[in-house]
């Protein structure tokens, strides 16, 4: 497992959040194109297993695509690191208690 400082963890987590949004965007785009796109061109004439192709490709396709992409980013973009930190526990919930840091 990688050793990251508190700051480095946040740089990494921002990257991971961005990757998650990109996956969502790709899935949404695919979903629209597959569903309305196929229906626009072929209507309900083209069928897969008796069901309309626009439905099969958009619903099952988006699902499989989504699982694949999520697997890909968790393997390639997401990194393992320690969630606990060596830094002291803080409580910043009150604005006036300036610098009230306690070590536990």
């Amino acid at each position, binding site marked *: 497992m990688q050793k990251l400082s*508190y*700051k480095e*963890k*946040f*740089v990494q*987590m*921002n990257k*991971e*959040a961005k*990757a*998650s*949004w990109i*996956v*969502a965007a790709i*899935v*949404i785009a695919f*979903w629209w194109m597959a*569903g*309305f796109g196929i*229906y626009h061109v072929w209507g*309900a004439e083209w*069928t897969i*297993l*008796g*069901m*309309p192709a*626009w*439905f099969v490709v*958009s*619903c*099952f396709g*988006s*699902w499989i695509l*989504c*699982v694949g992409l*999520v*697997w890909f*980013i*968790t393997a390639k973009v*997401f*990194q*393992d*690191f*320690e*969630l*606990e*930190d060596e*830094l002291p*526990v*803080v*409580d*910043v*919930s*009150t*604005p006036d208690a*300036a*610098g009230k840091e306690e070590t536990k």
Partner: protein
Amino acid sequence: MSAFLRLAPVFVFFLVLLGMGFYVQKRSAAARAEDYSKDYFIGGRSLGGFVLAMTLVATYSSVSSFLSGPGVAWQKGFGWVYYASTQVVAAFLVLGVLGKKLAVIGRRTESVTIVDIIRQRYQSNGLAICSAVVIIVFFTTQMLGQFIGGAQIFSAATGLSYEAGLLFFAAVVVLYTTVGGFQAVAITDTACAIVMLIGMVCLGYAILTKGGGMAQIMATINEASKTAVETGTGFDMLSPTADSAGIPSISVQLYLTQWMLCGVCTLGLPQSGVRCLSYKDTKSVHRAMVYGTIVVGAMMVGMHLLGVLSRGVLLEVEGSTDSVMPTLIASYMHPLVAGITIIGPLAATMSTISSLLIAGSSAIVKDIYLHAKETKQEPVNQKTLGHLSLAVTALMGIAAIGLSIKPPDIIVWINLFAFGGLETMFFWMLLLGLFWRKANATGALWGGIGGLAAYCVTMALNIKIGTFHNILIGVGVGFFLFVLGAHVGRQNDEKVHRLFFPEQF
């Protein structure tokens, strides 16, 4: 005999759930003596990937995923499955975007609830109290909705009266949640998710065999759609917009907002967010993203597709489309298999209730009571805290059961706003709070309350923009007010920024 066969699997399942609750209570006695709220409300940050995924999905999939959703799909056809499939992003997005930040900051600040995090980020007691109150109100009404739905299925399937069904199954949920706390909720949710999948497979098998195979079923559906298009009554089951008399019943605008309501904005649901504070390590959250997406897709696409296909078995139903699934289970399945299948929707209900109950209780005990104690710097006895937590959870559950016996109209009405209301209140507060340094208490308060008010008022008065769902108004107004408030109000201290945005220093 058939009544017994139908009830037996349900009884066994209930006993297993209760057993899990008491087992967890016993096993975590030591951990609770040390830090009661950490163990009771988030299970001591110990969830692994599989359980995390299952509890997230089980909490999210409610009675409507098993009952009303497939019922409408029976009527409207494939368009409704397409509509429901937007939920495929609901599992990984919250974990991928908020999951680790909440986990890291939660550990650093010893936060146990989402309101704890809000308190740290925005340094505002008023905002924290508002958030806790919104959570308590909406969670209680949502629980009620689930109790009502669950009791209806239970009585339809077993022949017991509504009240008897309610008391019986509700008592089980409240009991195991109360004694076992969050960890019991997570483990029972996992059991629930598994039986939901089993129920779905049983149901699929029954529909395919009773309907005479896929070809036969699709022929029936094609016939029904053809008649609908020709006569202008009923829905074109084969089109994505499910046209009725040439008018789309699911418009493109509605699809757009469905991606917000059941897709992207589920990020803001506090019952999902709190799960980000409860897992063990980064491996768990990575795995949960993959497993969660697999299960949520299987369940949402699968159940709604079964709704469509059940048209091949049932051409007509009496009453509302909600009765499609119970009728199917009660009339077309072997009693024992029906008993196993009926656990599916019950489990969907119970897993949602348990999560709402434990999170609602944490809002009272941790966010309001314990915080008041800390402010007054009074010491907290872990044993007293234990008794109090159990009492609040039990009372909240009992109150919800009591109200569901004869549900007051006002609560049924509030429940309509609960899901979207929670999203409009917390979506920007969590997302911008964790990713935008300028976000502050004024923005969060204006955006949260303003968005929530805009959403509820337009919903109540039935004010609409085109055919968009009003979530668009709620989230839109919320965003505008949030940004406005952030520019008007005072910025948070540097120590908050150093905690939440260390990468910018």
